[in-house]
């Protein structure tokens, strides 16, 4: 029993060590020539641009439901005028980064794992090696940077669309005063909130590309291996995002 637990712990510690080495060497390769600018643009396009639709959709509905919930809570105290700030603060501080990151994990992260995993089991990664090209540099590093930059941009989009979604429901549907919606946002949102949101989204971007690339890169050589790598990547990435969100929030508050 004790031995089994010990083995399990050791296995996870070893895995974490491998993940850390993977991260550090990918970034190490980033600063060495040749610089793969085109690869990086492609990844930014893949992670960022191609996720915009799903991000806009979820952001809109998140903002709308926040306004709905916020309105009924705030009306009890007769302070519907604060609806704007309630929506904006929850968006910027919490829901924008977390929900956008979860959507990117589901859409781009899983695709990233599958793409790298297929390259592993069809020996395309070995082929890069035989051509004396480091796969971490050619394949992984651009995706890391793509996530690091793409996710914050998507989060910004999420926040804006969400706030407009809240406006749509709060002002157009429930009749909150349009002027007070915006002024309450202006007076309540501080630089510290924005800064926290940015910090969260950058770290979530890193978590997504790190976990999803790692799981793809070490896919076991079979079709089941590929399936489980994708599932594990999405689950692990989501869990790490939520846990890290808690710690980051408790530090930032």
């Amino acid at each position, binding site marked *: 029993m004790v031995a089994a637990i010990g083995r399990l712990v050791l296995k996870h510690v070893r895995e974490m060590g491998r993940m850390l080495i993977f991260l550090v060497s990918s970034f190490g390769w980033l600063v060495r020539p040749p610089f793969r600018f085109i690869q990086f643009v492609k990844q930014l396009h893949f992670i960022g641009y191609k996720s915009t639709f799903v991000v806009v959709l979820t952001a809109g509905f998140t903002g709308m439901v926040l306004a709905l919930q916020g309105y009924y809570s705030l009306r009890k105290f007769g302070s519907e005028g604060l609806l704007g700030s309630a929506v904006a603060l929850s968006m910027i501080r919490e829901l924008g980064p977390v929900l956008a990151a979860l959507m990117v994990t589901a859409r781009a992260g899983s695709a990233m794992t599958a793409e790298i995993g297929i*390259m592993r089991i*069809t020996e*395309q990664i*070995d082929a890069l090696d035989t051509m*004396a090209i480091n796969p971490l540099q050619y394949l992984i590093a651009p995706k890391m940077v793509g996530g690091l930059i793409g996710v914050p941009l998507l989060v910004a989009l999420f926040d804006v669309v969400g706030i407009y979604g809240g406006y749509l429901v709060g002002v157009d549907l429930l009749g909150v005063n349009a002027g007070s919606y915006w002024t309450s946002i202006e007076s309540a949102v501080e630089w510290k909130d924005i800064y926290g949101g940015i910090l969260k989204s950058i770290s979530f971007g890193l978590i997504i590309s790190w976990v999803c690339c790692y799981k793809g890169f070490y896919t076991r050589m079979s079709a089941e291996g590929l399936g489980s790598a994708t599932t594990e990547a999405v689950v692990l990435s989501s869990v790490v995002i939520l846990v890290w969100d808690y710690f980051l929030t408790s530090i930032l508050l």
Partner: protein
Amino acid sequence: MIKLVGVKKTLGTQPVLRGVDLTIPTGKLTTIIGRSGEGKSVLLKHMIGLFQPDEGQVWVGDVEISRLRGRPLNDVRKRFSMLFQGAALFDSMSVFENVAFPLKEKLRMTGPDVATRVNEMLEQVGLAGMGHKFPAELSGGMRKRAGLARALVVRPEIVLFDEPTTGLDPLMAKAIHELITTMQRTFGFTAVMVSHEIPEIFFLSDYVAILKQGRIAVMAPPAEFIRTTDPEIQEFISVGGPVVLSGAAARS
């Protein structure tokens, strides 16, 4: 010269290579035969450092590569090309880009020379005009030929071919064999081929080696190889009828 000395490799719990001693002569075509799952691909991957042996040494020329990493290993790899068993074409690139890739990345070639070399190579493997297609649109045989083009386009010093003709129709297999032998004679590269094409390989190869139970059981020129007395090997090489060598091959 590639030289493996006492190479042992266990994958998972299964011992695959159990002490391989093999010397691949420079500028010759050496073919490795053996049953499926015997470890031929694993053996080939040891020669280019994709696998590191648990025990033993792998020499490429006068460099011992079994513990090399990073730049020194890459310097050795630059002398090689490898055709993978499944071709291992890059899915995200067209056939043209696949073949151009090692020219740009390995030889740092740029400009119109690249297109000339690529198109010439595609024509030689019978893929003229197919450059714009993507690997997913190709048949297995076409993928093999594209992989062959990608391996040979850089005119390497050593080429490893993992089953270059498996899955091709007999005519195409013959054409690929001719292409490999012609290129090998023209450019004089060292060729190591894994193949199941018995008896053809006895006519093409300078040397034949058989991997059996994780060791090289016989390694000899074809004429000598077919005289081996091991009954299992005899059975393996003569299932399609006895191998009869004539002319140059018999005299060699």
